[in-house]
């Protein structure tokens, strides 16, 4: 079947290649440093002496008990993930039986595999498309630090150059048990999250405007 000429008149393959190359080079230049772990709030509990409210507990329970992973499996660690996913190790025990093909419905990204610079913009886009709150587990040596390919011209030395990572699961590849432990660690992390909505906040919000202003 012939492609309508008017549709292809706006672009040619050469200009698309140049755009892609420019995008990759820009991403490479902007991701020289490591994005820090987004877990500074873990110490807040101690510093500010915050106690989790019942509402926090309910929200955290709901979030950690139904982590839906987005599809991001560029390499061989995906085999171990599949193994963890099916009957023998059974991720469904943790409320994770739903693989989301659309990142907009997912809240967990398990990055199973080596990431090349050519794939990096797509992974970053998938991460950005995920709705908040979202978490990332770096699965395997390549995802943690680039693994044996860390010095390669084509490989991103760790996902934390591209996206913030919550939990690192080392191994080449990690066994399903290790991945399950990583997921449980993330669940414990989520359980300690403190939300901006607290019971005093709710009380304040429910009070009439004048009263709040006078107080």
């Amino acid at each position: 079947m012939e492609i309508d000429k008017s549709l292809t008149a706006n672009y040619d393959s050469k200009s698309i290649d140049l755009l892609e190359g420019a995008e990759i080079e820009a991403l490479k230049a902007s991701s020289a440093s490591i994005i820090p772990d987004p877990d500074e709030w873990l110490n807040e509990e101690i510093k500010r002496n915050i106690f989790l409210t019942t509402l926090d507990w309910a929200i955290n329970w709901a979030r950690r008990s139904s982590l839906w992973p987005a599809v991001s499996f560029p390499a061989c660690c995906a085999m171990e993930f599949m193994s963890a996913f099916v009957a023998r190790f059974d991720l469904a025990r943790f409320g994770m039986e739903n693989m989301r093909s659309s990142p907009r419905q997912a809240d967990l990204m398990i990055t199973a595999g080596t990431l090349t610079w050519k794939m990096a913009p797509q992974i970053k886009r998938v991460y950005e498309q995920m709705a908040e709150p979202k978490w990332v587990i770096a699965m395997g040596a390549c995802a943690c630090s680039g693994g044996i390919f860390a010095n390669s011209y084509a490989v991103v030395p760790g996902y934390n150059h591209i996206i913030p990572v919550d939990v690192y699961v080392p191994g080449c590849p990690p066994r399903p048990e290790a991945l399950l432990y990583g997921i449980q660690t993330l669940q414990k992390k989520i359980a300690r999250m403190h939300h901006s909505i607290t019971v005093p906040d709710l009380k304040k919000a429910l009070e009439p405007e004048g009263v709040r202003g006078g107080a």
Partner: protein
Amino acid sequence: MTVALSGIEVARQLGPRFPEAIIESSNQAIVVKKEQLTAVMDYLKNSPELSFSFLSDITATDYFDYFEITYQLTSFEHNHKLTVKTRCYDRNKPVVPSVTGLWQGANFMEREIFDLMGIEFSGHPNLKRIFLWEGFAGHPLRKDYL
């Protein structure tokens, strides 16, 4: 089991038809001058007694002094195979004739070699990078890369 043809035997067959085209031959392979590569390949594919209808693989090797491009040919009809090599001595702008006219499967393999080894294939319909992105500096599989 596919029979690997002796390069010496094939060189003997090709000798009268392509004088001075074959640089050397061994039990493993024949080495063809790149100027006559297209003609020799055309004969290897189309002659009924050889009929190498399938190009299994193309690889390139950097020997510092020259690049060697290796073609693995297979004949389903006679169930035999042959390794053909050609050499390219120009390091700054290596050019080798493309075999996409004979085997369509050579298209991506030649693009891969162009991408990673920097060897140009004259007559290729779409010679551009396939693995790395446009704007990548250098050809990483060359021995002098980095």
